[in-house]
């Protein structure tokens, strides 16, 4: 399998074609995925648990063989040239992979040696990275004695240390306190702006994706559901959400052409997703009966995410659907409390 597109992928840092990973013939974690990520982009990969984000990243990092299809990373084919791919990339794993029995500094030093950094570079960069993740004073303690968040920070320091061209960040800020998270965000921004590092970032924090990513792709069950800038995605779903309580006829609202979606939740509140509330709100209100409460807010990335991955899409047909597991937990705890 030769990488035929080495020449014409000049603008793409990553390009997958029909990339598929099947585990034991029943689970298709990544399903014929076609995705192009441009050089210098910070690409957000969103999707519910088990969507296939980590599996996709593992394949791109040459840690898992694809079942079929292939991809190029920095113009190099992951199947035929895995060792060249490894020279171009860095990764912050979802599950911490630092060595417990080494100190923080030793972990970083080992990393530097494996990436062929010169001793003086190594020393300098280690000090820099330790300062970034605020572990300087714990650097010479065994990682075994670190807290969960400290391990996470060391993991991040290690992934960033050798300044790869393409960086994979699999839920990098999971479990970090707000201050550390701000630090990491600022650094990611700087890497992108100063060094033009291409980044693929998965996260469950919508705020993180909104703030950092130039483009976002949502995947569900191994397939790309939608892709675009945060603004574009929000626009696709509708610009504003109006929350109503009172006498509302859903059927009537849905006939209005600026209404994209209208549904009633368990407490009897109606959520109307619509375009341009500033202009159309009056028309909407006129279509309702007596109302006791009206709230207007802009669509967030959270709404986009739920729209494309939640059960929400189906709920219009099956009004009394099961809801997501999170809904059920909430309901259940509501009944108890």
């Amino acid at each position, binding site marked *: 399998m030769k990488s035929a597109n080495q020449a014409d992928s000049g603008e793409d840092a990553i390009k997958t074609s029909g990339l598929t990973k099947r585990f034991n013939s029943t689970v298709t974690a990544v399903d014929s995925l076609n995705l192009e990520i441009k050089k210098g982009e910070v690409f957000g990969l969103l999707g519910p648990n088990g969507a296939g984000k980590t599996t996709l990243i593992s394949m791109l990092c040459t*840690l898992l063989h694809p079942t079929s299809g292939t991809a190029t990373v920095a113009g190099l084919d992951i199947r035929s040239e895995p060792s060249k791919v490894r*020279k171009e990339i860095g990764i912050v794993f979802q599950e911490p*992979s630092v*060595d417990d*029995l080494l100190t923080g500094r030793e972990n970083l030093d080992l990393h530097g040696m494996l990436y062929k950094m010169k001793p003086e570079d190594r020393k300098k960069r280690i000090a820099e990275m330790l300062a970034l993740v605020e572990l300087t004073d714990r650097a010479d303690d065994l990682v075994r004695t670190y807290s969960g968040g400290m391990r996470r920070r060391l993991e991040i320091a290690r992934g960033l240390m050798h300044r790869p061209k393409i960086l994979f960040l699999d839920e990098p800020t999971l479990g970090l306190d707000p201050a550390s998270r701000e630090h990491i965000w600022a650094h990611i921004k700087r890497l992108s702006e100063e060094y033009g590092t291409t980044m693929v970032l998965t996260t469950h924090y919508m705020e993180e994706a909104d703030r950092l990513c130039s483009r976002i792709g949502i995947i569900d069950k191994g397939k790309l559901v939608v892709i675009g800038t945060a603004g574009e995605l929000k626009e696709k779903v509708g610009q504003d959400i109006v929350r109503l309580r009172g006498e509302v006829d859903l059927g009537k609202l849905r006939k209005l052409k600026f209404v994209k979606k209208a549904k009633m939740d368990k407490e009897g509140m109606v959520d109307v997703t619509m375009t341009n509330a500033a202009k159309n709100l009056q028309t909407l209100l006129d279509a309702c009966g007596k109302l006791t409460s009206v709230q207007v807010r802009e669509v967030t990335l959270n709404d986009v995410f739920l729209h494309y991955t939640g059960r929400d899409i189906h709920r219009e047909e099956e009004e009394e659907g099961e809801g997501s597991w999170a809904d059920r937990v909430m309901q259940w705890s509501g009944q108890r409390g």
Partner: protein
Amino acid sequence: MVEFDAIYAIWLREAKVYIREKERVIASIVSPLLWLFVFSAGVGGTVTVGETGYQAFVFPGILAMSILFVSFFYGLYIIWDRKLDFLKEVLVAPASRSSIFLGKAFGGMTDAMVQALVLLAVGAVFIMPLGPLQVIYLIPVLLLTSFSTASMGLFMGAKMRSQEGFALVSNLVMWPMFFFSGALFPLENLPGYLKDISLIDPITYAVDAIRVVLLGSGAFPLYYDVGVLCVFAAITGGMGLLAFGDLQQAK
């Protein structure tokens, strides 16, 4: 494709981890001493072998055994690394897989050699005199043996997912290799078919080589033993390299 920095980096990590896990160091030294003083002294009281006495006869066997067990079991740490997720950090690095394999193998050899040197020192004091020339001959033989068996262990560790499975299979492999090697009794006393099995057991040649160096006589000439060990090392090393080339992250 062999990179010395990467080999050194991996080896250094293994050595540090080894020193920090005190239980590992203690266990690996205590068990051969038990064999040496309890088993060989006990059996030696009832059996006589050749003119050297049983304790001197069995000393090379116990040396080979401890190398075999320590190096082979070292493969278990691959499974451990995988569990801890540390393995993928190494696998995703640009260092070639052969360098990673060699670094690991050298790590296993280091553990085995520490133990072997302790045994040799104890043996020199209590069991038989040991000249510097003998030590110089012995070290390459011991290194060759531990490289081969560490490669076997690493091969298995790379192929297997569970520690229990590894322990089970390695017991199935190691004990026969040990028993048929003539470590505990001279090969001449064995009935024909058992002797045939001994002849295809590579550890036989490790034990014999050590015996030639330490006791001055063995079943085969030294060059023959070393030749067989080299072939054994080449085969197991090749298997280990292939298994590492194909290593994936999946737990």
